[in-house]
C-alpha cells in the first residue's frame, strides 16, 4: 500500500480485513511518570472491541520495560499516550531501546498531548503515527490496521 492510498484510508474508510494479517497484538503502554491513564484505557477497549489483543502495561513504566514487554509479547504495535509533556525524551529513549533490541519492525503510535512543533523530533525517534487528541475510534483502528497491512506479516 503506498502513502497516498494509506492517507486516504486513514481518513475514515475501513479496509478489507487482510486475511494474512491475522490477530493484531498491541501493547498499550504508559511511559515515565505521567499518571493519566483514562485515554490509554479507552483505547485499550476500542482495540479489543475491534478484535485486537491488547497487552496493557499499567502506569509508570520505563522505556526498557516497555520494549522488553513488546519483544516478549511479539506485538505489532506499541501505543503510548502521554500528557505530561515529556514525550520528546521518552520517545527518543523508546526508539533507542527498540533499535538496540533489533525490534524496530514494531510500529510506534503516539497519542495524548503532543504539539505540532514536536512532531519532527518524534519522527526522528522512530514514531510511525501520532493520533490526534480528538480522533474517533474508527480512525485509530484503521490507522493500526493499515500500518500492519503495509508492513506485512513478520
Amino acid at each position, binding site marked *: 500500500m503506498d502513502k497516498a492510498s494509506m492517507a486516504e484510508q486513514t481518513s475514515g474508510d475501513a479496509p478489507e480485513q487482510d486475511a494474512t494479517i491475522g490477530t493484531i497484538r498491541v501493547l498499550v503502554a504508559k511511559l*515515565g511518570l505521567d499518571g493519566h491513564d*483514562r485515554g490509554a*484505557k479507552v483505547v485499550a477497549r*476500542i482495540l479489543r472491541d475491534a478484535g485486537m489483543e491488547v497487552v496493557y502495561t*499499567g*502506569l509508570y513504566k520505563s522505556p526498557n520495560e516497555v520494549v522488553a514487554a513488546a519483544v516478549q509479547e511479539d506485538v505489532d504495535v506499541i501505543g503510548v499516550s502521554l500528557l*505530561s509533556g515529556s514525550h520528546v525524551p521518552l520517545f527518543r529513549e523508546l526508539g533507542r531501546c527498540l533499535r538496540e533490541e533489533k525490534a524496530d519492525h514494531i510500529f510506534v503510535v503516539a497519542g495524548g498531548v503532543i504539539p505540532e512543533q514536536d512532531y519532527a523530533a518524534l519522527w526522528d525517534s522512530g514514531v510511525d503515527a501520532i493520533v490526534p487528541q480528538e480522533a*474517533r*475510534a474508527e480512525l485509530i483502528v484503521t490507522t493500526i490496521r493499515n500500518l500492519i497491512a503495509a508492513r506485512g506479516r513478520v
Partner: protein
Amino acid sequence: MNLFSETAIEDIREKQAAWEEKELAAALGSRPEEKPAYETECGIPLKRVYTAADIADIPADELGFPGAYPFTRGAYPTMYRGRPWTIRQVAGFGNPEATNQRYKYMIQTGQTGLSTDFDLPTLLGLDSDDPRAFGEVGRVGVAIDTVDDVDRLFDGIDLEKISVSLTINPSAWVVYAMYVAVAERRGYDLHKLAGTLQADPLKEYVAQKEWIYPVRPAVRLLRDLIMYSAKATPKINPISLSGYHLSDVGGNALQEIAFIMAFTIAYCEEVTGAGMDIDDFAPRLSFFFISHQDFFEQICKFRAARRVYAKIMAERFKARKPESMRLRVHVQTAAMSLTKVEHHNNLMRTAIQALGAVLGGCQSMHTNGLDEAFAIPTEEAMKLAIRTQQIIRDEINVTSVIDPLGGSYFIERLTRDMEIEIWKLLNEVDERGGAVKLVEEGWFQQKLADSAYATFQKIDAGEKISVGVNRYVDEASSSAEVHIHPYDEQCTQLQIDRLIAVRAGRDNARVRQLLKELAEQARSDEINLLPKTIEAVKAKATLGEICAALREVWGAYAEPMIV
C-alpha cells in the same frame, strides 16, 4: 413543613393536565420535540417543565438558609456580598524562582490567593536527580527537592498575608513540613498561615494516580497530617477532598460527589478512631470540585453536595459545631471539555462553567486557560482566565443575591434527585465494606473506567456533541499556531547542582540518623510522623530521601488490573 398547600398543588396539577391536553398537544402535533427523552449528563431524567407540584414533597427545612444547616443555599450567610470567591489560579513550572516570578505577575494582575502545581518527580516523592525523574523535572509543575526550594518558591511573598494552596498528594506531608520550616525560619506566627494541601490519597489511587505507598499507610500519613495541622497551623486546610479528579478520570456528577463523600467518611473514621474529636478537625476539611458542561446539573450538584455533607457530619459523626458541617469548595472548570481544535471556543466554555460554579456557590476558583487542553497555560491565557472571573464577579450582577436559583422548581427538584442518587451510592459503598477496602479491590476504578468509556462512545457516536469536533466541523480550521510554554532545559541541571551542594553542606550523619528514626516511627501506627519529618527537612534531608525511607518500611503500591 412543606412549601405549598395541598390545595395549591392540586390546582397546579389540574392546570398542568389541562395545558398538556390543549396547548402542548397542539404544539407537539405540529412539531414533535427533537428527542424522545431528555436527561442530565449523569442520567437523571428531565421533564419539559417543572411546577410547584414537582417539589411538593420536599420539606422547607431541606433548603434552609445560607450559612446554616443544611447549607443547601450556601456555605456562608452573606456569600459573595460579604466576600467574593478567591481567584486562585494554579501555577507551577521549572525552578522555584521561575514560579515565584509567575506568582508575582499574577498577584499584580489581581489574583488573591496562590496555588502551586509541582512537577511529577516532586509529586511522586522523587528527587530531581533520580533516574526515574528523567525528562520530567520542572515540566508540569515546580521542582522541589529541599526546604530551600520552598523558601525560593515564596521569596518576597508574605505568607501571613496571602493564602497558599499546594497541589500535592503522596508527598504532601513532606512539603507541609518544609512549608512550616520556612515559616518558622521567617519568624511567622504559624497560627496565621492560611492555605490548603490537596493531600487526598484515596482519590489518587482511583483517579489522579499519584502514589508511593500502599493504601493504608497513605491514609495513615493523612491522618497524621490532619491531626498535626489542627494544632500547629489551625488555619490551614490539611486536605482538599477532590471530586475534580474523579470527574476528570471519567466519573459523572453523582460519582464525583458520592465517591468523594465515601472517602471523606473513611478519613473521618480514621481520625476519630485515633482519638480526635470530629469538631476539632472537620471545620478545616475543604473540598475541590469540577465545574462541568451540564450547566444546571452542576449548579444542583454543588447544592446537593453541601446538603449531603452537612447530614453526614451531623448524623453519622455527631458533629456539633456548624463549622464542621459546612462544605467549603474550591472549583476548577472542566479541562476535559476543552478542545484542541478551535481552541478559542474554550474561552466560552470556561466562562459558562465558571458562571455555573458561581451560581452553585464556591469559595475559590481556577478557570482554565484556553490552551489548557494541550499545554501549560501561557501568561496571556492565564490573564484571560483571570479576566473571565473578574467579568463574572464585577460586570453581570450575579453576586448581589445569594443562591439566586434557589426555589426554582427545577433546581430544587434536581438538587433533591441528585441527593437521593448520591445516598444510594454511599449506601452501596457501606454495604460493600467501606471506601478503603473498595479502593484496594479496584471497585471505584472499574466504575470510573466504565463511565469514561461510556462517555467516549457517546462522543464517538455523535450523541454527545463537541462543537468543532463532531459537530460544526470546519476542516479548514487546523489547530492554530499555539504558543507553547517553553520548557527550561537548564532546570534539571540547576536542581541537581543544588542537591549536590545541599548534600555536601549538611550534617549527613545527622540526616541519616533522623531518617532512621523516622522509619522506626513509621513501623508503629501510633506515632505522628510530622514532628520527626519537620526535624528532617530542617536538617536538609531531601524530599526523595524522606519518601524513600518510608518506602523501605511500607513497600510500594501496585495497582490492580482494571481497564
